[in-house]
């Protein structure tokens, strides 16, 4: 025991010295706080964070790994290809766009930490296209507290735009789930008045908002509403009770994996209703490949696997190679994309990248965070772009695209069942779109100008 006596003594001595020394440092810090501290804080007043003479840094969180990654991890590759394309043409107001993507694995805890990294460490100017309702919910307060423009959230939840006073910096992008529910509901009420309607809903904002919209028109026709929890892959009970309730038309608001799962279960049960999937869950290529994977090859995948299924459409996709927008995306992807072919997810990424470039154009040369938000509220409803219906951006609403059309999938491509229909949340009427957004084409060089 005696041998150990020396070490602790040294330690105690060192500790005392250390504490005294650091105490002295603390006191020293207090003396010069008037000069040094303030100068450091006040230095960044003139220019916005992430913006220099010749560059703009923006960021996004996406599930690049994990269960949600297939499909969704292609969105940032599309957006990046478009930003590179714009950069190659000289950027926006002479500034090159630097796009930083971080993986959150669709886990809100990770979203929080990567957003901290993007905002505090990378010092991004704006968040563009952060994906997911539960994930983005974790950071929306932080982004608004910090005053970071939070554009084009890749999710159709109402919370991104229905109350701009709560989240002044956040803007939605895709049509929210409520208006999708309304448009689908009205279509069914008018064209299939005798259908017994079953609802298959994801048990979160997605399903809730959509159900609210659908029930505005179909409350009497709905015979069953079943919910599944994202992550639980057994949807047998839900599909079986839809079958038991005698539903002959199933409106499904779910993600692509659950489109494949519901199809497989229905095959197993010998249940053959008319299926109507939300836009989110109806990517024919992805569902096809998931179908053959989940069934271990028993069901033939491929893009024709969803033939006869109804869905909606709000931007042109790869099934319309003659559309001028799709031709632009193809050109961008061939010139600046990574390996692999153009997919609907990449088109989605390019479409919101296009809208962001336009927002930057509109915000002008003196780019500030508040400036771009003001510009969006002012001219956001006039933005050009691939979307079939105009955005709803104003100082009262930060919700995105205002409408969509109903289509039926034939040979992997959508056949129009209705013209483009536009509406808004609540009691707003559903009317045919007359803005001409549907028929427009991109400018010659593929880079938008301020509207």
């Amino acid at each position, binding site marked *: 025991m005696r041998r150990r006596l020396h070490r602790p*003594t040294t330690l105690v001595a060192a500790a005392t010295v250390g504490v005294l020394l650091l105490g002295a440092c603390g006191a020293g810090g207090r003396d010069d706080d008037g000069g040094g501290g303030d100068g450091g804080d006040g230095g960044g007043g003139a220019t916005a964070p992430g913006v220099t003479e010749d560059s703009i840094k923006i960021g996004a969180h996406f599930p690049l790994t994990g269960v949600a990654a297939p499909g969704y991890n292609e969105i940032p590759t599309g957006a990046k290809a478009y930003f590179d394309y714009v950069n190659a043409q000289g950027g926006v107001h002479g500034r090159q766009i630097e796009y930083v993507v971080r993986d959150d694995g669709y886990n809100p805890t990770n979203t929080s930490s990567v957003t901290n990294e993007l905002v505090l460490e990378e010092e991004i100017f704006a968040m563009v296209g952060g994906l997911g309702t539960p994930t983005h919910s974790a950071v929306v*307060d932080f982004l608004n507290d910090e005053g970071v423009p939070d554009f084009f959230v890749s999710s159709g939840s109402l919370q991104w735009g229905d109350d701009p006073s709560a989240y002044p910096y956040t803007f939605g992008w895709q049509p929210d789930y409520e208006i999708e529910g309304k448009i689908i509901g009205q279509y069914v009420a008018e064209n299939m008045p005798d259908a017994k309607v079953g609802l298959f809903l994801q048990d979160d904002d997605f399903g809730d908002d959509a159900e609210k919209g659908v029930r505005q028109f179909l409350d009497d026709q709905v015979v069953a509403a079943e919910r599944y929890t994202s992550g639980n892959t057994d949807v047998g009970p839900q599909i079986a009770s839809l079958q038991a309730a005698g539903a002959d038309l199933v409106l499904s608001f779910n993600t692509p994996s659950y489109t494949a799962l519901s199809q497989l279960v229905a095959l197993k049960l010998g249940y053959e209703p008319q299926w109507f999937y939300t836009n989110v869950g109806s990517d024919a290529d992805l569902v096809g490949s998931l179908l053959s994977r989940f069934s271990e090859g028993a069901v033939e995948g491929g893009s024709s696997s969803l033939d006869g299924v109804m869905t909606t459409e709000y931007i042109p996709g790869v099934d319309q190679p003659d559309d001028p927008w799709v031709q632009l995306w193809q050109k961008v992807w061939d010139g600046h994309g990574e390996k692999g072919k153009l997919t609907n997810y990449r088109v989605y990424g390019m479409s919101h990248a296009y809208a962001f470039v336009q927002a930057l154009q509109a915000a002008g040369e003196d780019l500030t965070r508040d400036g771009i938000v003001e510009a969006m509220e002012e001219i956001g409803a006039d933005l050009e772009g691939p979307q079939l219906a105009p955005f709803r951006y104003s100082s009262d609403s930060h919700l995105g695209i205002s409408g969509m059309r109903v289509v039926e999938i034939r040979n992997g491509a959508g056949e129009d069942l209705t013209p483009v229909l536009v509406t808004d949340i609540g009691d707003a009427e559903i009317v045919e779109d007359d803005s001409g957004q549907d028929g427009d084409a991109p400018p010659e060089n593929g880079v938008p100008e301020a509207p």
Partner: protein
Amino acid sequence: MAALRARASAWWAGSILGRHLLVALLGLVVVVVVLESSSDFRNLQLASMAYLGIAAGGLTVLTGLNGQISLGHGALMAIGAYTTALLLDDREASTPLPLVVLAAVVVTLLVGIAVGAAAARLHGPYLAGATLALAVAVPGIALYFKEQLGGEQGLRVVLPDIPAWVLDLAFFVTGQDLTRSRYVAYLAWVTLVITFVLLANLSRSRVGRRWRAVRDDEVAAELAGVHLGRARVSAFVVSAAAAGAAGAMMAVTVRLAAPSGFTLTLSLTLLSAVVLGGLGSLAGALIGAALLTFLPQVVTDLGVDAGLSDIRAAELAPLVYGVVMVLVILLAPAGIVGTVRTALVKRRLRRSAVAQTGGAATTDPTSPATPATDPATDPATTTSKGSTT
């Protein structure tokens, strides 16, 4: 001077509490220096490290000292986090933060009693299975009680405004304004230091000796009058309380309590932090937590710098993490701290052997090499113990 030194050493050897408090004080000074000199982002990263460290510290006491394995600590953290979220639902929430943390600890502790009572009857793989069920079931509760617990999207956590006296104090000590991120980091680290002092004291006390006795030989412990069930339940409860505090800090740091944050992965992450650092050692738990917090970001950044695409760089992190885990198990099965400690002991032994041949020292060569006074050094024997009996 010599007398003073002798007295100081006597105090060091005699007062365990004093020693732990001194180390804690030193730790706090280091925390202040590190937090004040790092950026907002680093502060938040350090806060994440702290909450992982708190939970891993609790788990290392349970597994390392009492030989029980738990795959359910993520779920216990969820209970702490949801308690916090329910108490901090808007900015006007009037409950002071220390009370919120205390409430989170108490609620988790109560759950810990229930689970611990069941766990005390189980061994090895059965215990792992039961706690695994806990990890799977608890996020489901949040989904089922959607109205109250927010379902899949979870509950937002709103940190109340920083009290004025804290701002004043921080300015007085450091001469810098306290940012919110730094405030959160201080909260987490102060909680960590308090938790660690309590855990360290407990494990050096009679209670801790009982836990070790039960771990090392149940029959012998029972013959010596140790109540097996009570020892097991108490270890589980203490460990659960630490997980509750960790959950509270996680909620405050992440600003959200959602089921997808508390999947089985979190429980496994905690276990791997404990194994990486060294089973049974609080310092090891902290090192493990640091590795888990910083490794993914460092690796991803390296990947991006090396010209990999974002997706490839993101995929690199789990890979490197797995490789590090395999390497530690292969090369340092006692964990990082365990291996370093063994090496130190060996060196000391060699030195004292040299000294003894010189005839100067009278040290008993076995005394430094008694790992039983502290933490198990071999995870394999500890965790398999239950299954073999």
